[in-house]
């Protein structure tokens, strides 16, 4: 709870005034977002046990059946190879969430570490890291992902790598900025006087103060990772076909838009709703954790 403490240090006065005003709104947002995200995480974890069919089980004689409605065997219909769409959508959630979490954690780790180092030490180290940031950031993001995937080949691990390649940068930037301002604060000087090493200062004193912003970034980053993975799968440079993902399902559905509307509808809807839930949660988190916005009662 270190970060909450420093937060309250800054805004103790505003807290009592603003919270009651925010609370009802916050409630709805956090609640809805939280429920949606929780639902997908649960589905992702217990997916295999609730999926009615094997997502890769083909039934060539039962291709392109329209949704049969809730409770019927193929409630969301079958796809172009007779596979059950509901099951594929459930398994697809596993991949999307796995990729999203992995990308956010890895890129967050790299970004926060590099940002803190960059901001704390300054000088040459800062210069080099910032140049790296500029170069990598100038790439159109999708292009970098496509090229890396072409180079590495299909695969879950490669996909995560390709997505991390640019996503560490927002963390790096924000963390660097905040480190720069925190570096000169009293409690850092105090720690230095007490003999703490640089590593200790960074890990014990600075980074905990940055977590809340990183958390907000991370939440929104998770949403964009899901969309990015779907985009890469859509363009055909994602995971091999034996792993069902929402993006690949959408890509396969492209030639069936007018004949089998349920093929592109459900995976796309899943992406949309999941991302919506994550964004709602992110909004709520930002409202709780970002003091500057609280001052004006604004909600982004």
């Amino acid at each position, binding site marked *: 709870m270190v970060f909450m403490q420093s937060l309250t240090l800054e805004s103790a006065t505003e807290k009592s005034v603003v919270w009651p005003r925010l609370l009802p709104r916050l409630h709805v947002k956090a609640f809805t977002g939280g429920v949606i995200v929780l639902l997908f995480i649960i589905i992702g974890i217990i997916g295999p046990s609730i999926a009615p069919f094997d997502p890769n089980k*083909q039934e*060539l*004689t039962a*291709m*392109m059946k329209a949704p049969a409605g809730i409770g019927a065997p193929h409630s969301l219909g079958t796809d*172009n*190879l007779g596979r059950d769409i509901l099951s594929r959508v459930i398994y697809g959630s596993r991949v999307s969430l796995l990729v999203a979490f992995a990308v956010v954690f890895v890129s967050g780790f790299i970004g926060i570490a590099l940002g803190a180092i960059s901001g704390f030490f300054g000088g040459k180290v800062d210069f080099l890291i910032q140049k790296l940031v500029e170069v990598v950031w100038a790439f159109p993001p999708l292009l970098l992902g496509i090229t890396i995937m*072409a180079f590495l*080949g*299909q695969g879950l691990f490669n996909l995560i790598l390709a997505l991390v390649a640019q996503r560490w940068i927002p963390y790096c930037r924000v963390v660097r900025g905040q480190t720069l301002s925190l570096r000169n604060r009293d409690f850092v000087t105090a720690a230095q006087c007490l003999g703490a090493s640089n590593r200790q200062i960074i890990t014990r004193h600075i980074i905990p103060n940055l977590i809340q912003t990183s958390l907000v970034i991370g939440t929104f980053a998770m949403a964009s990772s899901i969309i990015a993975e779907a985009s890469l799968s859509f363009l*055909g*440079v994602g995971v*091999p*076909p*034996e792993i069902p993902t929402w993006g690949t399902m959408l890509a*396969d559905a*492209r*030639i*069936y*838009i*007018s*004949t089998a509307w349920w093929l592109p509808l459900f995976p796309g809807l899943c992406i949309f709703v999941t991302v919506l839930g994550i964004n709602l949660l992110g909004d709520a988190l930002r409202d709780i954790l970002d003091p500057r916005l609280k001052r004006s009662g604004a909600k982004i």
Partner: protein
Amino acid sequence: MISARRFVTALTAVTCLLCSALGVRAQSRVSIGVTETIETHNPYGDSVSLQYGIYSEVTGPFCTYSYNKADFEGRLAERWKVENPTTWIFYLSKNYKFNDGTTVTAEDVVHSLMNRVIGDPQSKQKASVAPSVVKAEALDKFTVKVTTDKPTAPLLSFLCDRLIVTSKAAFDKYGRDAADREHMMGGGPYQLKELIPGQRLVLQKRPDHPDAKNHPNAPDEVIYRIMREPEQRVTAFLNDEIQIAQFIPPHMRQRIEKNAKLRIAPIDSVEIMFLAMQPKPPFDKKEVRQAVCHAINRDQIIATLLESFASRLDGPIGPGQYGYDPNLKPKMNYDPEVSKKLLAQAGYANGVDVELQTPVGRYTLDKQLTEAMVPMLNAAGFRARLLTPEWATLWANVQKGTVPFYYMGRGSVQDPSAALHQYFHTGETPRIGYSNPKLDELLDKEQQEFDPNKRRQYLSQAMSILTDDAPACFLWRHKLLWGLNSRIDYKPLPDARIYAIDMAVKR
């Protein structure tokens, strides 16, 4: 709210009414939605069927293959003879004129063949048009002598519908780029009016051309619009934005059949689809390769996924292709039990891991069809996995010879000689790496044999060896669905060529 399209249509209708009332014949225009693209102004700068077809029509064609007669017909080259196994003489028609009025002569043919197809570094057509040609000379104004390095019996299948004859004079006067861009002209019944690479190409009929006079109902203007996305092509076809739609996926045909003004024309393509296997473990054993062939239930795939729009191949080629033998043995029927026995014989009674690679979006339903093959292979004792690398990577690896097991097609197989040499002759390409001296001998013989009966025999024997030894499992030929507006009377060709002169537009 009136959409622009409807407004323009209404305006055109009124204009047509007025024109016909005044006795003025309105221009007939046909728009065609195609899937291949024309990317360059250089007629020799690409090697795709669409390009060959369009430019052949603009410049001749040199000669053409008639599927009705199952033989070659003269056009710009009226007739020909084989003087000796390495020398061909072509006699040109005297009636073909360029757009500026000058006659197409032997000099133009020689120039096109030697300087543009073979000599020009930017040409991508050498291997497909003149692989064994070493010299071409003009014997007189309308006679061309072509010399090949080795006897090439199927030479016509390379030259006909492919050799594009452009004007030497324009080339000399304006230089290559300007000649291609601004002074593109040919002796054919249509002239190039507009070309926007990657988007569209517009041809206009030349009313004074003898072919045009013989085909008065051929459209006056033809617009090729590049539409690679099937959904868009079909929707444009339903909206009458295009009157001919190339290659409609089978599952979309109901929408078209419901419309009385449109029809579907299925045509057997000349592209053979197969599973290639490199003779390295586990495919070094013939039994394993044969097991793969017996494992695939082609009939079910054709019936369900392709909705019967494909014809099964029992051998490298099918009916209508040169050298087809309906009695070819053996037949690799669907029989997973036989597959299991063969695998056991080869020492893989407990199964064997294989990775099948396929392109995505390059051939009709490629990913889907191969996805359906995976459980079939698994049921026959394999442990199969599917990989879908992007085309650039896959093709590079296939050419390098590093893909052990893949799904592929080989187009333009009117005459199987080129394809068989390419994939199965020792040393020609590393795509499969198969080597069989007996097969090589037969393939060499057929290439140099000018007697059609003997040639067919050699081809049959070669194909029998191939089917039995199974370096590839020959699967099917797609039936390509063309969408045609009922206003247009046209029989599409088995390759992707479109000759507008053969169309008849009802007014």
